[in-house]
Protein backbone atom coordinates (compact mmCIF):
# COMPACT_ATOMS: atom_id res chain seq x y z
CA UNK A 1 0.00 0.00 0.00
CA UNK A 2 1.19 3.51 -0.81
CA UNK A 3 3.00 5.33 1.98
CA UNK A 4 0.82 7.78 3.91
CA UNK A 5 2.10 11.34 4.06
CA UNK A 6 1.03 14.19 6.34
CA UNK A 7 1.60 17.68 4.93
CA UNK A 8 2.25 20.43 7.47
CA UNK A 9 2.23 23.78 5.66
CA UNK A 10 0.25 26.94 6.43
CA UNK A 11 0.34 28.46 2.93
CA UNK A 12 -2.64 26.95 1.13
CA UNK A 13 -1.21 27.31 -2.35
CA UNK A 14 2.10 25.69 -1.43
CA UNK A 15 0.26 22.91 0.44
CA UNK A 16 -1.78 22.28 -2.68
CA UNK A 17 1.37 22.12 -4.78
CA UNK A 18 2.94 19.69 -2.29
CA UNK A 19 -0.16 17.50 -2.34
CA UNK A 20 -0.07 17.35 -6.10
CA UNK A 21 3.59 16.28 -6.12
CA UNK A 22 3.09 13.68 -3.37
CA UNK A 23 0.21 12.18 -5.32
CA UNK A 24 2.27 12.27 -8.52
CA UNK A 25 4.86 10.21 -6.64
CA UNK A 26 2.17 7.61 -6.04
CA UNK A 27 1.88 8.31 -2.31
CA UNK A 28 -1.22 9.06 -0.28
CA UNK A 29 -1.83 12.40 1.45
CA UNK A 30 -3.66 11.72 4.71
CA UNK A 31 -4.18 15.34 5.74
CA UNK A 32 -2.90 18.91 5.52
CA UNK A 33 -2.19 20.61 8.86
CA UNK A 34 -1.43 24.30 9.34
CA UNK A 35 -0.01 24.32 12.89
CA UNK A 36 1.63 21.95 15.41
CA UNK A 37 -1.60 21.09 17.26
CA UNK A 38 -3.36 20.27 13.99
CA UNK A 39 -0.39 18.15 12.94
CA UNK A 40 -0.50 16.23 16.21
CA UNK A 41 -4.25 15.60 15.90
CA UNK A 42 -3.84 14.42 12.34
CA UNK A 43 -0.95 12.12 13.28
CA UNK A 44 -2.97 10.60 16.12
CA UNK A 45 -5.90 9.97 13.80
CA UNK A 46 -4.11 8.95 10.61
CA UNK A 47 -0.76 7.47 11.70
CA UNK A 48 1.17 8.75 8.64
CA UNK A 49 4.40 7.06 7.56
CA UNK A 50 6.15 10.42 7.46
CA UNK A 51 5.46 14.15 7.20
CA UNK A 52 6.41 17.04 4.92
CA UNK A 53 7.17 19.83 7.38
CA UNK A 54 7.33 23.58 6.80
CA UNK A 55 9.41 25.31 9.46
CA UNK A 56 7.46 28.54 9.91
CA UNK A 57 3.82 27.78 10.51
CA UNK A 58 0.60 29.68 11.13
CA UNK A 59 0.14 31.85 14.25
CA UNK A 60 3.91 32.20 14.71
CA UNK A 61 4.32 28.54 15.57
CA UNK A 62 7.31 26.45 14.67
CA UNK A 63 7.55 23.38 12.48
CA UNK A 64 10.49 22.32 14.60
CA UNK A 65 8.18 21.98 17.62
CA UNK A 66 5.70 20.12 15.46
CA UNK A 67 8.44 17.78 14.24
CA UNK A 68 9.49 17.07 17.83
CA UNK A 69 5.92 16.24 18.86
CA UNK A 70 5.36 14.01 15.84
CA UNK A 71 8.58 12.15 16.49
CA UNK A 72 8.27 11.82 20.26
CA UNK A 73 4.59 10.90 20.34
CA UNK A 74 4.24 8.79 17.21
CA UNK A 75 7.73 8.11 15.85
CA UNK A 76 6.80 10.07 12.72
CA UNK A 77 9.85 11.52 10.94
CA UNK A 78 9.88 14.53 8.62
CA UNK A 79 11.19 15.89 5.37
CA UNK A 80 11.75 19.56 6.18
CA UNK A 81 10.67 21.97 3.46
CA UNK A 82 11.77 25.48 4.30
CA UNK A 83 13.22 28.75 3.07
CA UNK A 84 15.69 28.83 5.95
CA UNK A 85 17.58 25.60 6.10
CA UNK A 86 21.02 26.22 7.54
CA UNK A 87 23.51 24.48 9.78
CA UNK A 88 21.86 25.71 12.97
CA UNK A 89 18.44 24.53 11.81
CA UNK A 90 19.76 21.10 10.82
CA UNK A 91 21.37 20.78 14.22
CA UNK A 92 18.14 21.65 16.01
CA UNK A 93 16.19 18.88 14.31
CA UNK A 94 18.94 16.25 14.18
CA UNK A 95 17.41 14.45 17.19
CA UNK A 96 14.16 13.80 15.32
CA UNK A 97 15.97 11.79 12.63
CA UNK A 98 15.02 13.96 9.64
CA UNK A 99 14.34 12.14 6.37
CA UNK A 100 15.55 15.06 4.27
CA UNK A 101 15.75 18.78 3.69
CA UNK A 102 14.31 20.61 0.71
CA UNK A 103 14.95 24.34 0.36
CA UNK A 104 12.28 26.75 -0.78
CA UNK A 105 11.76 27.58 -3.53
CA UNK A 106 11.67 23.87 -4.39
CA UNK A 107 11.27 22.15 -7.72
CA UNK A 108 9.02 19.24 -8.48
CA UNK A 109 11.97 17.00 -9.34
CA UNK A 110 13.79 17.91 -6.15
CA UNK A 111 10.81 17.04 -3.99
CA UNK A 112 10.13 13.83 -5.90
CA UNK A 113 13.72 12.76 -5.17
CA UNK A 114 13.27 13.53 -1.48
CA UNK A 115 9.98 11.62 -1.36
CA UNK A 116 11.51 8.56 -3.01
CA UNK A 117 14.40 8.65 -0.60
CA UNK A 118 12.08 8.99 2.42
CA UNK A 119 9.89 6.17 1.21
CA UNK A 120 12.93 3.91 0.88
CA UNK A 121 14.13 4.83 4.40
CA UNK A 122 10.72 4.15 5.90
CA UNK A 123 10.19 0.80 4.20
CA UNK A 124 13.67 -0.29 5.24
CA UNK A 125 12.89 0.75 8.80
CA UNK A 126 9.60 -1.13 8.74
CA UNK A 127 11.49 -4.19 7.55
CA UNK A 128 13.76 -3.95 10.59
CA UNK A 129 10.92 -3.19 12.96
CA UNK A 130 10.59 0.44 14.02
CA UNK A 131 13.27 1.37 16.45
CA UNK A 132 12.09 4.50 18.17
CA UNK A 133 9.17 6.46 19.45
CA UNK A 134 6.18 4.31 18.59
CA UNK A 135 3.65 4.11 21.36
Amino acid at each position, binding site marked *: MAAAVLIVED*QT*LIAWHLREIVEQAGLRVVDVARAPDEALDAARRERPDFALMDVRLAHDTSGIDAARLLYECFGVRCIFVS*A*NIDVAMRKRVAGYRPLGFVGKPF*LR*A*ELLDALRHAEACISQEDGNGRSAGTD
Partner: protein
Amino acid sequence: MHEMPEVILNVNDNEAARYVTTRMLRSAGFQVVEAANGMDALRIAQENRPAVVVLDINLPDISGIEVCRRLKADARTAWSMVLQMSATNIALTDRVESLAAGADSFLIEPVEPEELAAVTRALLRLYRSEHELRLALAERDMLLREVNHRVKNSLQLVLSMLSLQGAGLRDAKARELFAKAISRVTAIASVHEQLYQGRDPLTVDMHTYLTGLCGELARAGIDDASDARLSTEVDNLHLPTEQGVSIALIVNELVMNALKHARPAQGPSRIVVRLAHHGADRARLTVRDNGAGPHAAVANAERPEPGGDRASARAVAADRPAGLGSQLVRMLARQLHGELSFDHTQEGYATHVTFPLQAVPTWRPPS
Protein backbone atom coordinates in the same frame (compact mmCIF):
# COMPACT_ATOMS: atom_id res chain seq x y z
CA MET B 1 15.97 52.06 26.23
CA HIS B 2 17.69 49.82 28.77
CA GLU B 3 15.58 47.01 30.10
CA MET B 4 17.59 46.74 33.32
CA PRO B 5 19.19 49.51 35.40
CA GLU B 6 22.94 49.46 34.87
CA VAL B 7 24.92 47.88 37.66
CA ILE B 8 28.50 48.54 38.72
CA LEU B 9 30.42 45.57 40.13
CA ASN B 10 33.02 46.57 42.73
CA VAL B 11 35.69 43.89 43.29
CA ASN B 12 38.10 44.24 46.21
CA ASP B 13 39.21 41.80 48.91
CA ASN B 14 40.01 44.59 51.36
CA GLU B 15 36.75 45.23 53.14
CA ALA B 16 37.50 48.82 54.14
CA ALA B 17 38.69 49.80 50.67
CA ARG B 18 35.71 48.07 49.08
CA TYR B 19 33.35 49.95 51.41
CA VAL B 20 34.89 53.32 50.54
CA THR B 21 34.65 52.71 46.76
CA THR B 22 31.07 51.45 46.98
CA ARG B 23 30.10 54.51 49.03
CA MET B 24 31.63 56.86 46.51
CA LEU B 25 29.85 55.11 43.63
CA ARG B 26 26.50 55.02 45.43
CA SER B 27 26.63 58.68 46.34
CA ALA B 28 27.31 59.41 42.66
CA GLY B 29 24.00 57.65 41.96
CA PHE B 30 25.16 54.25 40.78
CA GLN B 31 23.72 50.88 41.73
CA VAL B 32 26.53 48.72 43.10
CA VAL B 33 27.08 45.00 43.74
CA GLU B 34 30.25 43.66 45.38
CA ALA B 35 32.66 40.75 45.19
CA ALA B 36 35.61 39.97 47.48
CA ASN B 37 37.64 37.66 45.22
CA GLY B 38 38.26 36.86 41.57
CA MET B 39 36.09 33.77 41.20
CA ASP B 40 33.11 35.44 42.88
CA ALA B 41 33.64 38.44 40.63
CA LEU B 42 33.43 36.24 37.51
CA ARG B 43 30.31 34.47 38.76
CA ILE B 44 28.52 37.69 39.74
CA ALA B 45 29.51 39.31 36.43
CA GLN B 46 27.94 36.41 34.53
CA GLU B 47 24.75 36.69 36.55
CA ASN B 48 24.37 40.47 36.77
CA ARG B 49 26.00 41.61 33.51
CA PRO B 50 27.42 44.79 35.08
CA ALA B 51 27.99 47.79 32.78
CA VAL B 52 31.25 48.59 34.58
CA VAL B 53 33.51 46.41 36.72
CA VAL B 54 35.72 48.32 39.16
CA LEU B 55 38.49 45.78 39.63
CA ASP B 56 41.29 45.70 42.19
CA ILE B 57 44.50 44.01 40.99
CA ASN B 58 45.54 42.24 44.19
CA LEU B 59 42.97 39.56 44.86
CA PRO B 60 43.45 36.47 47.04
CA ASP B 61 42.65 33.81 44.43
CA ILE B 62 43.36 35.02 40.89
CA SER B 63 44.80 38.41 40.03
CA GLY B 64 42.56 41.25 38.88
CA ILE B 65 44.40 41.25 35.56
CA GLU B 66 43.47 37.60 35.02
CA VAL B 67 39.87 38.35 36.05
CA CYS B 68 39.79 41.09 33.41
CA ARG B 69 41.19 38.74 30.77
CA ARG B 70 38.52 36.14 31.55
CA LEU B 71 35.73 38.71 31.58
CA LYS B 72 36.72 39.91 28.12
CA ALA B 73 37.04 36.36 26.77
CA ASP B 74 33.57 35.27 27.89
CA ALA B 75 30.77 36.25 25.50
CA ARG B 76 28.43 36.82 28.47
CA THR B 77 30.68 39.40 30.08
CA ALA B 78 32.84 40.70 27.25
CA TRP B 79 30.79 43.89 26.91
CA SER B 80 31.34 45.02 30.52
CA MET B 81 33.74 47.97 30.81
CA VAL B 82 36.63 47.22 33.15
CA LEU B 83 38.14 49.93 35.33
CA GLN B 84 41.27 48.51 36.90
CA MET B 85 42.34 50.07 40.22
CA SER B 86 45.33 49.54 42.44
CA ALA B 87 47.20 51.19 45.30
CA THR B 88 50.25 48.95 45.01
CA ASN B 89 50.63 47.71 41.43
CA ILE B 90 50.94 51.15 39.98
CA ALA B 91 54.23 51.05 38.08
CA LEU B 92 54.07 51.85 34.38
CA THR B 93 54.42 48.14 33.51
CA ASP B 94 51.45 47.25 35.75
CA ARG B 95 49.27 49.89 34.14
CA VAL B 96 50.32 48.86 30.66
CA GLU B 97 49.80 45.17 31.41
CA SER B 98 46.29 45.84 32.75
CA LEU B 99 45.26 47.76 29.65
CA ALA B 100 46.86 45.15 27.40
CA ALA B 101 44.80 42.45 29.16
CA GLY B 102 41.65 44.29 28.11
CA ALA B 103 41.00 46.86 30.84
CA ASP B 104 39.30 49.98 29.51
CA SER B 105 40.85 52.37 32.01
CA PHE B 106 43.20 52.44 35.00
CA LEU B 107 43.09 54.50 38.20
CA ILE B 108 45.70 54.74 40.94
CA GLU B 109 44.38 54.60 44.49
CA PRO B 110 43.60 56.54 46.54
CA VAL B 111 41.21 58.23 44.17
CA GLU B 112 39.06 61.33 44.64
CA PRO B 113 35.29 60.69 44.54
CA GLU B 114 34.81 63.17 41.68
CA GLU B 115 37.41 61.43 39.54
CA LEU B 116 36.02 57.93 40.20
CA ALA B 117 32.50 59.15 39.35
CA ALA B 118 33.70 60.94 36.20
CA VAL B 119 35.70 57.97 34.90
CA THR B 120 32.78 55.60 35.65
CA ARG B 121 30.40 57.89 33.76
CA ALA B 122 32.77 58.03 30.80
CA LEU B 123 32.94 54.22 30.71
CA LEU B 124 29.15 54.04 30.99
CA ARG B 125 28.83 56.28 27.93
CA LEU B 126 31.04 53.89 25.99
CA TYR B 127 29.10 50.91 27.29
CA ARG B 128 25.78 52.45 26.23
CA SER B 129 26.85 53.34 22.74
CA GLU B 130 28.27 49.86 22.21
CA HIS B 131 25.08 48.37 23.57
CA GLU B 132 22.95 50.42 21.18
CA LEU B 133 25.13 49.47 18.23
CA ARG B 134 24.78 45.82 19.14
CA LEU B 135 21.01 46.14 19.31
CA ALA B 136 20.89 47.94 15.97
CA LEU B 137 23.04 45.26 14.37
CA ALA B 138 20.90 42.48 15.75
CA GLU B 139 17.81 44.25 14.43
CA ARG B 140 19.38 44.60 10.99
CA ASP B 141 20.32 40.97 11.02
CA MET B 142 16.78 39.94 11.87
CA LEU B 143 15.36 42.22 9.20
CA LEU B 144 17.68 40.71 6.60
CA ARG B 145 16.69 37.18 7.59
CA GLU B 146 13.03 38.12 7.46
CA VAL B 147 13.33 39.72 4.03
CA ASN B 148 15.30 36.72 2.78
CA HIS B 149 12.59 34.40 4.02
CA ARG B 150 9.89 36.56 2.45
CA VAL B 151 11.65 36.65 -0.92
CA LYS B 152 12.10 32.90 -1.05
CA ASN B 153 8.57 32.26 0.09
CA SER B 154 7.19 34.60 -2.55
CA LEU B 155 9.29 32.91 -5.23
CA GLN B 156 7.91 29.59 -3.99
CA LEU B 157 4.38 30.93 -4.41
CA VAL B 158 5.19 32.00 -7.98
CA LEU B 159 6.66 28.59 -8.79
CA SER B 160 3.79 26.71 -7.11
CA MET B 161 1.26 28.75 -9.04
CA LEU B 162 2.98 28.12 -12.39
CA SER B 163 3.43 24.47 -11.56
CA LEU B 164 -0.20 23.91 -10.58
CA GLN B 165 -1.43 25.78 -13.63
CA GLY B 166 0.90 23.82 -15.93
CA ALA B 167 -0.02 20.44 -14.46
CA GLY B 168 -3.66 20.97 -15.37
CA LEU B 169 -2.92 21.29 -19.08
CA ARG B 170 -3.52 18.48 -21.53
CA ASP B 171 -1.58 19.91 -24.43
CA ALA B 172 2.06 18.80 -24.32
CA LYS B 173 3.26 21.97 -26.03
CA ALA B 174 1.51 24.14 -23.47
CA ARG B 175 2.92 22.04 -20.61
CA GLU B 176 6.37 22.50 -22.04
CA LEU B 177 5.94 26.26 -22.10
CA PHE B 178 5.07 26.19 -18.42
CA ALA B 179 8.07 23.99 -17.68
CA LYS B 180 10.25 26.57 -19.44
CA ALA B 181 8.74 29.43 -17.48
CA ILE B 182 9.34 27.52 -14.24
CA SER B 183 12.92 26.82 -15.23
CA ARG B 184 13.54 30.50 -15.99
CA VAL B 185 12.09 31.63 -12.68
CA THR B 186 14.19 28.99 -10.92
CA ALA B 187 17.40 30.19 -12.58
CA ILE B 188 16.71 33.67 -11.22
CA ALA B 189 15.49 32.43 -7.85
CA SER B 190 18.44 30.19 -7.11
CA VAL B 191 20.80 33.16 -6.95
CA HIS B 192 19.16 34.07 -3.64
CA GLU B 193 20.44 30.89 -2.07
CA GLN B 194 23.93 32.13 -2.94
CA LEU B 195 23.48 35.72 -1.85
CA TYR B 196 22.45 35.08 1.71
CA GLN B 197 24.73 32.14 2.31
CA GLY B 198 27.87 33.88 1.15
CA ARG B 199 29.34 36.76 3.11
CA ASP B 200 29.56 39.01 0.08
CA PRO B 201 26.21 40.11 -1.38
CA LEU B 202 27.71 41.91 -4.40
CA THR B 203 29.22 38.93 -6.18
CA VAL B 204 28.17 35.40 -6.84
CA ASP B 205 30.31 32.28 -6.86
CA MET B 206 29.69 30.94 -10.34
CA HIS B 207 30.96 27.46 -9.62
CA THR B 208 28.36 26.83 -6.93
CA TYR B 209 25.63 28.72 -8.78
CA LEU B 210 26.01 26.95 -12.14
CA THR B 211 26.65 23.52 -10.65
CA GLY B 212 23.49 23.84 -8.57
CA LEU B 213 21.48 25.20 -11.47
CA CYS B 214 22.60 22.43 -13.84
CA GLY B 215 21.84 19.86 -11.16
CA GLU B 216 18.29 21.17 -11.03
CA LEU B 217 18.02 21.24 -14.82
CA ALA B 218 19.26 17.67 -15.09
CA ARG B 219 16.76 16.51 -12.52
CA ALA B 220 13.83 18.42 -13.93
CA GLY B 221 14.68 17.37 -17.49
CA ILE B 222 12.35 18.18 -20.33
CA ASP B 223 9.78 15.54 -21.14
CA ASP B 224 11.64 12.35 -22.03
CA ALA B 225 15.13 13.84 -21.94
CA SER B 226 15.83 12.29 -18.57
CA ASP B 227 18.61 10.11 -19.97
CA ALA B 228 20.74 13.13 -20.82
CA ARG B 229 24.16 13.46 -19.14
CA LEU B 230 24.79 17.00 -18.03
CA SER B 231 28.20 17.99 -16.71
CA THR B 232 29.76 21.27 -15.66
CA GLU B 233 33.31 22.60 -15.79
CA VAL B 234 33.32 25.94 -14.05
CA ASP B 235 36.42 27.95 -13.10
CA ASN B 236 36.62 29.55 -9.70
CA LEU B 237 35.00 32.79 -10.84
CA HIS B 238 33.19 35.36 -8.77
CA LEU B 239 31.09 37.64 -10.94
CA PRO B 240 29.03 40.69 -10.05
CA THR B 241 25.58 39.37 -9.20
CA GLU B 242 23.92 41.08 -12.18
CA GLN B 243 26.35 39.40 -14.59
CA GLY B 244 26.01 36.09 -12.78
CA VAL B 245 22.24 36.04 -13.18
CA SER B 246 22.56 36.83 -16.92
CA ILE B 247 24.99 33.92 -17.35
CA ALA B 248 22.66 31.61 -15.43
CA LEU B 249 19.73 32.57 -17.65
CA ILE B 250 21.78 31.94 -20.79
CA VAL B 251 22.87 28.54 -19.44
CA ASN B 252 19.25 27.77 -18.63
CA GLU B 253 18.10 28.53 -22.19
CA LEU B 254 20.93 26.67 -23.91
CA VAL B 255 20.66 23.60 -21.70
CA MET B 256 16.87 23.42 -21.99
CA ASN B 257 17.25 23.69 -25.73
CA ALA B 258 19.94 21.01 -25.85
CA LEU B 259 17.86 18.72 -23.65
CA LYS B 260 15.03 19.03 -26.09
CA HIS B 261 16.80 18.97 -29.43
CA ALA B 262 20.22 17.41 -29.02
CA ARG B 263 19.52 13.76 -29.77
CA PRO B 264 22.62 11.93 -30.96
CA ALA B 265 22.22 9.12 -33.46
CA GLN B 266 23.10 6.65 -30.74
CA GLY B 267 23.81 6.67 -27.04
CA PRO B 268 22.67 9.22 -24.49
CA SER B 269 22.96 12.92 -25.18
CA ARG B 270 25.83 14.60 -23.41
CA ILE B 271 25.75 18.25 -22.55
CA VAL B 272 28.74 20.11 -21.14
CA VAL B 273 28.51 23.55 -19.57
CA ARG B 274 31.87 25.28 -19.27
CA LEU B 275 32.71 28.70 -17.86
CA ALA B 276 36.39 29.60 -17.95
CA HIS B 277 38.82 32.49 -18.12
CA HIS B 278 39.51 33.44 -21.75
CA GLY B 279 42.67 35.50 -21.98
CA ALA B 280 43.52 38.03 -19.36
CA ASP B 281 40.32 39.96 -18.95
CA ARG B 282 37.59 37.92 -20.53
CA ALA B 283 35.64 34.79 -19.76
CA ARG B 284 33.90 32.35 -22.06
CA LEU B 285 30.76 30.41 -21.47
CA THR B 286 30.36 27.32 -23.64
CA VAL B 287 27.44 24.96 -23.82
CA ARG B 288 28.27 21.95 -25.98
CA ASP B 289 26.19 18.93 -26.85
CA ASN B 290 26.75 15.79 -28.91
CA GLY B 291 23.50 16.10 -30.81
CA ALA B 292 23.37 14.96 -34.40
CA GLY B 293 21.25 17.68 -35.94
CA PRO B 294 21.98 21.36 -36.43
CA HIS B 295 19.47 22.43 -33.87
CA ALA B 296 21.95 25.29 -33.43
CA ALA B 297 21.03 25.97 -29.91
CA VAL B 298 20.40 29.64 -30.28
CA ALA B 299 19.21 29.64 -33.84
CA ASN B 300 15.67 28.76 -33.18
CA ALA B 301 14.94 27.28 -29.84
CA GLU B 302 11.23 26.83 -30.34
CA ARG B 303 11.31 25.76 -33.98
CA PRO B 304 14.40 23.76 -34.97
CA GLU B 305 15.27 24.03 -38.64
CA PRO B 306 14.93 20.67 -40.29
CA GLY B 307 17.87 19.75 -42.47
CA GLY B 308 19.62 23.12 -42.31
CA ASP B 309 23.40 23.33 -42.24
CA ARG B 310 25.64 25.15 -39.85
CA ALA B 311 25.95 28.29 -41.89
CA SER B 312 22.26 28.74 -42.31
CA ALA B 313 21.73 28.07 -38.65
CA ARG B 314 24.15 30.83 -37.87
CA ALA B 315 22.47 33.13 -40.31
CA VAL B 316 19.20 32.43 -38.65
CA ALA B 317 20.72 33.22 -35.31
CA ALA B 318 22.02 36.51 -36.54
CA ASP B 319 19.18 37.79 -38.60
CA ARG B 320 15.86 36.43 -37.64
CA PRO B 321 13.93 36.87 -34.48
CA ALA B 322 13.17 33.40 -33.26
CA GLY B 323 11.62 31.94 -30.14
CA LEU B 324 11.83 33.62 -26.78
CA GLY B 325 14.74 31.35 -25.80
CA SER B 326 17.06 32.49 -28.54
CA GLN B 327 15.98 36.10 -28.17
CA LEU B 328 16.81 35.89 -24.49
CA VAL B 329 20.26 34.47 -25.20
CA ARG B 330 21.08 37.22 -27.70
CA MET B 331 19.70 39.94 -25.49
CA LEU B 332 21.57 38.73 -22.42
CA ALA B 333 24.82 38.26 -24.38
CA ARG B 334 24.49 41.87 -25.51
CA GLN B 335 23.87 42.96 -21.94
CA LEU B 336 27.14 41.25 -20.98
CA HIS B 337 28.89 43.13 -23.85
CA GLY B 338 29.69 39.65 -25.07
CA GLU B 339 30.07 38.00 -28.46
CA LEU B 340 27.95 35.08 -29.43
CA SER B 341 29.52 32.38 -31.61
CA PHE B 342 28.85 28.82 -32.64
CA ASP B 343 30.93 25.91 -33.79
CA HIS B 344 30.45 22.38 -34.91
CA THR B 345 33.24 19.88 -34.35
CA GLN B 346 33.48 16.14 -33.83
CA GLU B 347 32.55 16.79 -30.22
CA GLY B 348 29.27 18.25 -31.33
CA TYR B 349 27.60 21.62 -31.46
CA ALA B 350 28.67 24.42 -29.22
CA THR B 351 27.43 27.88 -28.42
CA HIS B 352 29.95 30.33 -26.92
CA VAL B 353 29.42 33.62 -25.18
CA THR B 354 32.71 35.46 -24.74
CA PHE B 355 32.43 38.48 -22.49
CA PRO B 356 34.69 40.98 -20.73
CA LEU B 357 35.15 40.52 -17.00
CA GLN B 358 34.09 43.58 -15.08
CA ALA B 359 35.94 44.83 -12.08
CA VAL B 360 34.42 42.97 -9.16
CA PRO B 361 32.79 45.42 -6.77
CA THR B 362 34.43 45.43 -3.38
CA TRP B 363 32.39 44.61 -0.37
CA ARG B 364 33.66 45.68 2.99
CA PRO B 365 31.89 43.49 5.50
CA PRO B 366 31.44 44.94 8.96
CA SER B 367 34.25 43.33 10.90
